[in-house]
């Protein structure tokens, strides 16, 4: 049977991808950002996940104002890194576990999470930057990736509670898939940042750290955080953190924190990263 073993949370700042692609990871500005991922890069080599369910958001790349799906799951066999206006990132194509992706889609819909199914999509920095952070610059990504895209651009995005519940439904879907697979789920985006208006540059390390604490200490509090709290406390783009709750919801009650990293800034953003292991 397929099983979810691990959840990973990470920021997906585009400038991090650019720093990797341009070989700047040892620069004084960037080094503290990347140092915090070294533990995970070594650890994940032994974990050898077969599949990653990767929750991210599209930043006006594949989806424009014409179609705005709240929750979308990409089900085709493979994907290209998107051209976001200055040429696609030079990273490998992304390969799906399409059977599992279709299975998650049908299971979630029957479980009353009405997913949009997407078969033709290029994947932007929201998905490729986390892969680069965890796996570096390989010729091929070492595992399959199932992209799940969440609308966090046009209000209202889904509630934290709904995201958490979707995570629970994804876990049920994975557990009912009849192939022996080690599956990880990643939640990406955040942490505190605001990219617009006179209040741009807002950062709230106390709030961010509390959010990371409550991943293990009190996830019930996290699922009840209203949108307005993300906006007031973490900046207008901090709302991306609802995507971490899909990851958290998929892990169930018993988890252990294996690793944490937090650094300000990467460009306009507070970088957060956590590794959570399912213990039963």
């Amino acid at each position, binding site marked *: 049977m397929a099983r979810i073993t691990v959840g990973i949370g990470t920021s997906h700042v585009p400038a991090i991808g650019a720093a990797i692609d341009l070989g700047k990871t040892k620069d004084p500005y960037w080094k503290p950002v990347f140092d915090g991922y070294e533990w995970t890069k070594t650890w994940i080599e032994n974990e050898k996940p077969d599949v990653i369910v990767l929750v991210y958001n599209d930043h*006006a790349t594949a989806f424009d*104002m014409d179609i705005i799906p709240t929750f979308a799951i990409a089900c085709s066999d493979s994907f290209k890194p998107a051209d976001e206006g200055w040429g696609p990132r030079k990273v490998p194509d992304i390969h799906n576990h399409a059977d599992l992706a279709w299975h998650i889609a049908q299971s979630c819909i029957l479980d009353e999470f009405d997913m949009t199914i997407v078969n033709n999509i290029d994947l932007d920095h929201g998905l490729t930057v986390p892969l680069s952070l965890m796996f570096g610059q390989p010729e091929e990504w070492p595992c399959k990736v199932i992209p799940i895209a969440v609308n966090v651009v*046009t209000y209202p995005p889904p509630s934290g509670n709904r995201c958490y519940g979707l995570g629970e439904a994804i876990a049920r879907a994975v557990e009912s898939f009849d192939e022996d697979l080690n599956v990880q789920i990643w939640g990406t985006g955040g942490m505190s940042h*605001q990219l*617009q208006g*006179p*209040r*741009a540059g807002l950062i709230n390390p106390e709030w961010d750290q509390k959010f990371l604490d409550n991943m293990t200490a009190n996830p019930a509090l996290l699922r009840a955080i209203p949108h307005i709290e993300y906006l*007031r406390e973490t900046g207008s783009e901090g709302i991306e953190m609802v995507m971490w709750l899909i990851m958290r919801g998929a892990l169930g009650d018993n988890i252990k924190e294996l690793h944490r990293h937090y650094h300000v*800034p990467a460009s306009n953003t507070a970088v957060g990263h956590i590794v959570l292991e399912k213990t039963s």
Partner: protein
Amino acid sequence: MSELARTNIHEYLAELEDIPGTRVYTTKRARQGYWLNQFAMSLMKAKNREAWKADEAAYLADWPMTQDQRDAVLARDYNLLLDLGGNIYYLAKVFSTDGLSFLQAVSTMTGMSTEDYQDMMINGGRSPKGLRSIKEGT
């Protein structure tokens, strides 16, 4: 705990307008800015970027935007563009075509120089203190 109290849509929307220096991209702004954002989106294609760079005003004339929106794009007045329904991820196509990074473009909305803004970020960013609520002043 999967059932939470039902959200009152009017209270929800009113609160979104109570954040200092912030324009939340609501459905109302999405409708107002539809063509502005779709114009910006068109700059994802190299061919369109060339036409845009050759004659910005002529390029804008082909899009059914308001004259206010066209003028604000030409002036690169990003705060005004937010007021007119622009969304930052769409407007990013305009400033990246100009060769600006997110940090450089974002700093223009803050009344700070790019250097001062970058220094603020390196020193930990802008505190939320006093910037959480217009009404409460917290």
